[in-house]
C-alpha cells in the first residue's frame, strides 16, 4: 500500500513537470451524482463534465442530477447501496456522519500533490477530519449584509462598521417606517446565519467553534451576551414581523418593495434580487459590523464539495475528475458570473468582476482574520443544529423566553455530544 502510494506520488511528480494529466488514457465508466438541480448550476456542471469527457474520450460518463433537497436524504441510501464514483456534498460537520461510517474515500493523497496543496490550501481545513482530507471544494460564497443603497442614501446613512453605528442606522430606518432587516425563518437556517454572526462578533471564531463542538455550555454568560446583543435589534423592531411564516425567498419582496432595508444572506440572494428589478445602483454589500472590538473578524463562507464514495468503482477516474474540477482554469469558468456566480477555490484562478463577488473575495481574503466558518448547520452536528436553530427562531419571535430556550439547548447538548 505504502509503496503503491509512493509510486503514484512519484508518477505525479514526474508528469506534473510536463503538466500532462497522469492518466490520459482513462477508461471504463464514471458515474457522477449531482445535487445542483437549479437550472443555472445544472447547466454549468453539465458543461464542465462535457469538457472533462472531451479530454477522456474512452471514459463513459454518466451524470445523474438529483433535486437538491431530496439529495440530502437520498445520499444515505446511495452511498451504501449504489455508490457513484463522484458525489456532491458539503464540507465540515455535514460530511462527518459519512466519514465516520467509512462511506467517503480518503483523498489525502490528492492534497499531497504539490499543485493541489498550494492551490486548494484555503479550503483544506473545511475538508479535514482526523487529519485526513475527504473531498475537494468546488465553489464557495460569502455571507454578509446586502442592503438598499437608495434607502440608505435617502436617510443619510452610511455602511456601519461598529455595533453603535449599526444600532444608530437601525433606529433611523425603523423611524422611517421600515424594518432594518428582512428574514424568513420558516426553514430555520436563516436564523442560524444570524446566530453565526452575532456569536462570532461577540465572542470570536474559536469560541463559536467550541460551542458548535459542544465544549461550552449554552447557559454560559458569554452565550447570553450574544443573545443580549441580538435582542437589542429585535426589541427596536429591526426585523420584519411574522418572519417565522416565510421562507428566505418569500422574505425577498420586503426588500424589493423597500419595506426592509437590508438582508443578511449568502451571495446567492443577489441573483433573485436583481431579477426582481433592483439595479446595482440600488443594491450594495457590506461586511457585518464589529460588535466586540477585541475579537478578530470572521465570516461565514459555505463550501460545496465533491467526494469519492468509498464504494466507488472507478476511483482512478474519480480522482482525475476532482483534479480537473479544481484546476485553476475550470474554477475560473464554473464560478464566473454566467455560471455559478460564486468564488473559485483555486488560488490561481481569477474571480469574476461582479461587484459583489469582488467585495466578497476581498473581504474573505483580507478582512476575515479570525477564521472562516462553514455555516451553523454545517459546523454543528446535525441534531444540535436542528434543535438550536429552532431555539433561535423561537428567540427571534419571543426574546423574553431566552432563559427557557437556553436551558432546552443545554439539555440537548448533554444528550447529543458524548
Amino acid at each position, binding site marked *: 500500500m505504502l509503496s503503491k502510494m509512493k509510486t503514484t506520488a512519484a508518477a505525479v511528480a514526474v508528469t506534473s513537470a510536463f503538466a500532462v494529466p497522469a492518466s490520459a488514457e482513462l477508461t471504463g465508466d464514471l458515474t457522477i451524482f449531482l445535487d445542483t438541480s437549479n437550472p443555472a448550476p445544472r447547466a454549468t456542471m453539465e458543461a464542465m463534465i462535457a469538457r472533462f469527457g472531451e479530454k477522456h474520450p474512452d471514459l463513459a460518463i454518466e451524470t445523474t442530477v438529483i433535486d437538491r433537497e431530496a439529495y440530502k*436524504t437520498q445520499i444515505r441510501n446511495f452511498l451504501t447501496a449504489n455508490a457513484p464514483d463522484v458525489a456532491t456534498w458539503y464540507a465540515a460537520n455535514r460530511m462527518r456522519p459519512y466519514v465516520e461510517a467509512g462511506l467517503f474515500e480518503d483523498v489525502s493523497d490528492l492534497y499531497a500533490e504539490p499543485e493541489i496543496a498550494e492551490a486548494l490550501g484555503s479550503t483544506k481545513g473545511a475538508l479535514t477530519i482526523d487529519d485526513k482530507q475527504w473531498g475537494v471544494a468546488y465553489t464557495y460564497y460569502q455571507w454578509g449584509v446586502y442592503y438598499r443603497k437608495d434607502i440608505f442614501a435617502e436617510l443619510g446613512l452610511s455602511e456601519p462598521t461598529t455595533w453603535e453605528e449599526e444600532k444608530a442606522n437601525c433606529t433611523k430606518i425603523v423611524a422611517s417606517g421600515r424594518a432594518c432587516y428582512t428574514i424568513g425563518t*420558516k426553514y430555520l437556517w436563516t436564523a442560524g446565519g444570524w446566530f453565526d454572526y452575532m456569536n462570532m462578533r461577540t465572542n470570536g471564531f474559536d469560541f463559536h467553534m467550541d460551542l458548535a463542538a459542544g465544549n461550552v455550555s449554552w447557559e454560559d454568560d458569554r452565550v447570553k451576551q450574544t443573545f443580549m446583543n441580538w435582542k437589542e435589534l429585535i426589541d427596536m423592531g429591526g426585523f420584519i414581523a411574522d418572519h*417565522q411564516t416565510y421562507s428566505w425567498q418569500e422574505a425577498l419582496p420586503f426588500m424589493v418593495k423597500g419595506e426592509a432595508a437590508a438582508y443578511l444572506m449568502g451571495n446567492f440572494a443577489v441573483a433573485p434580487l436583481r431579477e426582481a428589478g433592483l439595479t446595482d445602483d440600488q443594491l450594495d454589500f457590506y461586511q457585518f459590523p464589529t460588535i466586540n472590538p477585541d475579537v478578530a473578524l470572521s465570516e461565514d463562507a459555505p463550501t460545496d464539495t465533491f467526494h469519492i464514495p468509498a464504494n466507488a468503482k472507478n476511483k482512478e477516474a474519480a480522482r482525475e475528475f476532482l483534479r480537473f474540477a479544481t484546476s485553476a482554469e475550470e474554477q475560473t469558468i464554473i464560478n464566473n458570473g454566467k455560471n455559478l456566480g460564486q468564488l473559485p477555490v483555486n488560488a490561481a484562478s481569477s474571480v469574476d468582476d461582479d461587484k459583489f463577488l469582488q467585495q466578497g473575495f476581498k473581504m474573505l481574503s483580507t478582512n476575515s482574520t479570525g477564521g472562516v466558518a462553514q455555516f451553523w448547520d454545517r459546523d454543528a452536528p446535525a*441534531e444540535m443544529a436542528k434543535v438550536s436553530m429552532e431555539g433561535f427562531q423561537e428567540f427571534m419571535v419571543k426574546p423574553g423566553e431566552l432563559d427557557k430556550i437556553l436551558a432546552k439547548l443545554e439539555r440537548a447538548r448533554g*444528550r447529543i455530544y458524548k
Partner: protein
Amino acid sequence: MTVSSDIPEAESWFHRNQQRIAPWLFLAPGILFFAVYVIAPVFQSFNLSLYEWDGLGEKTYVGMRNYEDLYWEYVDRDAFFTSLKNNVMWLFLYLLAIPAGLFIALFLNQTVRGIRLYKSLFFFPFVISQVVVGLVFTWFYDPSFGLLNTMLGWVGMGPINVLGNEHLVTYGIVAAGLWPQTAYCMILYLTGLNAVDPEQIEAGRLDGAKGWSMLWNIILPQLRPATFIAFVVTIIGALRSFDLISIMTQGGPFGSSRVLAYYMFEVALSEYGFRMGYGAAIAVVLFLIMLCFIAYFLWSMYREEKGH
C-alpha cells in the same frame, strides 16, 4: 375431471380438501403481503427502537433508553409532549368532519336540477392532493397577502398570523385537514342515505316525528354503518396527519405544530435526522395508540358479524 370421477380411489388430497383449501389459497397473496409489509415491520420497528443507530454505521443496543428519553421529553414538556398533545387535538377536532359531512349530505340529498354538479363540487377537495390543500391554506393564512386577513380587515379585526402563532397553528392546520375530510364523510353519508328505508320515514312521519327527532330517531340509526366507517377513516386520518404539517409549517414555528408521525420523520429521516432507533420508538408509541382504536374497531366489527 372425468378421470377422477371414474376412479374415485385415485382422488388426490387436493381434491378431497378443495373446499377447505380454496379460501386459504385465495387469501394467500393477501396474507403474504400483509405479513411481509405490515406485520413484520411492526416487529422490526420494535426491535430497532432498542438500538441507537444513525442509519449508516454500527447499531448499538441501548435497551429501553430511547423510551426513557421519550419519557423525559414528556416530563420536560419538550418535543415529544408537544407532538402527543397535538395528536390528541387532531383526534378530537378531526372528528368534527363527521357531523359536518352528515349535514352537508342531508342538505345535498335532494332532487333538484344539477344536484350532481353540486355534489361533485362539494366532493372536490377530497379529490385534489393534500399538497395542494396545504398550499391553498398556507396562502389563505398568509399574514401579508392572505385572504383570511383581508376578510378580517373588512370587519375591522387586526391581522393574525395563524401559522406563525404557536397557539393557533394546530387549529389552522386541522381546519385545512377538515376541508377534504368533511367531503369524504359527506360521500359516505350520501351513499348511506340512499339505503335509508322510505317506509320507516313514512311510519315515523305518521307517528309525528319531524326535524331533529326524525333525524335522531329514524335516520341516524339507519346510517350506523356509514357513521362507523366515517369514524374509522377519520380517526386513522387524524393519527397519520403528516402531509399538511410538512407542507404548511414543517412542524414550526419552533416545533409547535409537530405530531408524532412528523416528529418521527424529523428525528430519523429528515435533513438533520440521524436517530433511527429514536424514530422507531416514536413509531412504536404511535402504533400503540393506533392499536387501541384498531382493536376497538375489530372488536365491534366482530360483534356485528356475530349478531347476524
